[in-house]
């Protein structure tokens, strides 16, 4: 018997709490999933829209896989923490999955997912979680479509194996309910996989397979085969003949004529082939009908089997070939890149903005290697989770210091050449302005560095996506650069330009989301 949990709460209270936790499971990977990880793909990429029925099925299949991954993790964690659990009075000998899950929940086991030894479980849960997240949003990206297809394919293989195992049992020991349930689960998965392959291939694989195998309508087939049967079989039907007397009855009117084979004597004239056949022996008609209908069913089944085989071949090709998935993903990204290139080329085609000679000259200046910056951000971002918080803040501080020095221009560089001697400057003693500006600049840089560092720490702490982090970082740097430029331009007496820059700053600030603004406050 399981021991009462050592918290002093009754079992009912604990179970209620556990149920509450299960309703809203709070796991580290879930926070990441909530992020707009694929903002760019949302904007530019092709997505597969999901109808409600397919969405519900995929969600159910993934949820089952996630439950399995959760229980696998909980079991592993339970096994590895036996001493701790025993000291807290839990029954470490239990094999009951629901008990293990409950204990894992109570002990916040999922927080251990960030530990290196559980990284495989974390990745497994993350991946299913991301697919599940996209499914909930009613549209999926190509990589998730490949992964979902791959997962469902292997789920189906597992179900097939269970089905075969059950069918191998002697008929009296077979569980028919289980067989039916497995068949239904397999059928559901096949339907979903077909839809996924249609999206991934950009084709309708069923329609293609059907078109390759045209099928005569049942009516035409039956009639044609009936005619063939009665023209060729059994001796007593030898006298049967039929023809169309179009000249007599009009071009489109079909008349069935029954004659004696030897004499050609007219026996009767009928409106339909069926009426003609009605003259024949009932037993012969019945046999022919059964034969023809059987043929039709066999033909249809053979065709359906061939179609299914072709569809299965396509599904297998997409569901089991990583090369195919990689090829598809590369192609999808190529299309997105082409869209981005088109956007960039539009800029090249746009008429040049109105600008004076001196403004053009200011576009020359120091160079920042953005790629190098991005790579450094990227490396720090990748390491962020593994670093101790103190170490992370040290690294952030170091990086921010370097970037601030590299990016914020010196005053002499941002002052327009030949424009320093303005009335505004002439009115003040040069050395005073220089000192004051130098002091302002230093203060500004210190303030900027401090704020950037604080932001970075906060963003890393919250596990912001790389894309969002970088975008916000550059926005921040742009903003402060403009602010610095506004100060210097204003000091140099370029009031109009300073006004324009202020407007630009306001524009950048206005772009911030309420969440960001709130964060800043």
């Amino acid at each position: 018997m399981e021991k009462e949990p050592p918290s002093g709460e009754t079992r009912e209270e604990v179970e209620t709490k556990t149920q509450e936790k299960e309703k809203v499971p709070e796991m580290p990977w879930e926070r990441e999933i909530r992020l707009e990880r694929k903002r760019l793909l949302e904007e530019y990429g092709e997505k597969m829209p999901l109808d409600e029925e397919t969405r519900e099925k995929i969600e159910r299949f993934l949820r089952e896989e996630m439950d399995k991954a959760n229980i696998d993790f909980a079991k592993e964690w339970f096994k590895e923490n036996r001493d701790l659990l025993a000291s807290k009075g839990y029954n470490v000998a239990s094999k009951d999955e629901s008990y293990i899950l409950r204990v894992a929940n109570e002990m916040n086991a999922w927080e251990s997912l960030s530990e290196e030894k559980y990284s495989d479980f974390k990745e497994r849960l993350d991946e299913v979680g991301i697919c599940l997240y996209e499914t909930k949003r009613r549209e999926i990206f190509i990589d998730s479509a490949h992964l979902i297809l791959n997962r469902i394919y292997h789920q189906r293989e597992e179900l097939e194996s269970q089905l075969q195992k059950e069918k191998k049992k002697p008929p009296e020991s077979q569980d028919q309910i289980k067989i039916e349930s497995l068949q239904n689960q397999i059928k559901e998965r096949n339907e979903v996989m077909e839809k996924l392959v249609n999206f991934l291939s950009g084709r309708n694989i069923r329609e293609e397979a059907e078109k390759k195998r045209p099928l005569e309508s049942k009516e035409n087939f039956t009639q044609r085969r009936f005619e063939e049967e009665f023209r060729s079989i059994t001796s007593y039907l030898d006298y049967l003949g039929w023809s169309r007397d179009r000249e007599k009855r009009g071009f489109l009117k079909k008349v069935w004529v029954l004659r004696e084979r030897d004499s050609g004597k007219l026996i009767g004239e009928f409106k339909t082939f069926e009426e003609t056949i009605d003259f024949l022996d009932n037993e012969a008609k019945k046999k022919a009908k059964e034969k023809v209908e059987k043929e039709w069913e066999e033909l249809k089944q053979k065709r359906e089997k061939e179609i299914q085989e072709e569809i299965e071949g396509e599904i297998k090709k997409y569901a089991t070939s990583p090369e195919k998935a990689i090829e598809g993903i590369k192609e999808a990204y190529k299309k997105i890149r082409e869209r981005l290139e088109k956007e960039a080329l539009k800029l090249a085609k746009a008429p040049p903005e109105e600008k004076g000679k001196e403004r053009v000259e200011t576009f020359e200046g120091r160079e920042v290697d953005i790629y190098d910056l991005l790579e450094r951000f990227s490396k720090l971002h990748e390491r962020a989770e593994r670093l101790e918080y103190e170490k992370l803040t040290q690294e952030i501080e170091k990086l921010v210091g370097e970037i601030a020095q590299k990016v914020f221009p010196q005053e002499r560089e941002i002052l327009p050449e030949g424009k320093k001697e303005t009335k505004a400057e002439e009115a003040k003693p040069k050395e005073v302005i220089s000192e004051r500006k130098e002091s302002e600049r230093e203060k500004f840089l210190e303030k900027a560095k401090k704020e950037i560092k604080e932001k970075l720490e906060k963003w890393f702490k919250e596990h912001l996506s790389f894309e969002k982090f970088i975008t916000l970082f550059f926005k921040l740097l742009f903003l402060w650069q403009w602010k610095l430029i506004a100060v210097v331009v204003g000091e140099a007496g370029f009031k109009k330009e300073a006004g324009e820059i202020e407007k630009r700053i306001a524009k950048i600030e206005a772009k911030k989301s309420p969440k960001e603004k709130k964060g800043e406050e």
Partner: protein
Amino acid sequence: MIPTFLTNQTLKNFLLKSNFSQKTKEILVSKIPEMGINEREKLFEILLKSYFLEKEEKDTLLKIKKFFKP
């Protein structure tokens, strides 16, 4: 007068390191000196997106290699 991120050299360097086609790069490099502030900001944003995309593609392919069961 523009931020360091938008100078001719910074943008040119950023563009040349992107994975845009050679033809696109050549056209854009020749047009950068004529671009105004708004166009430069837009180009910077597009190049940033292109970088994210490149990274996302690499991550996605790694993910497929890792999680896709043959």
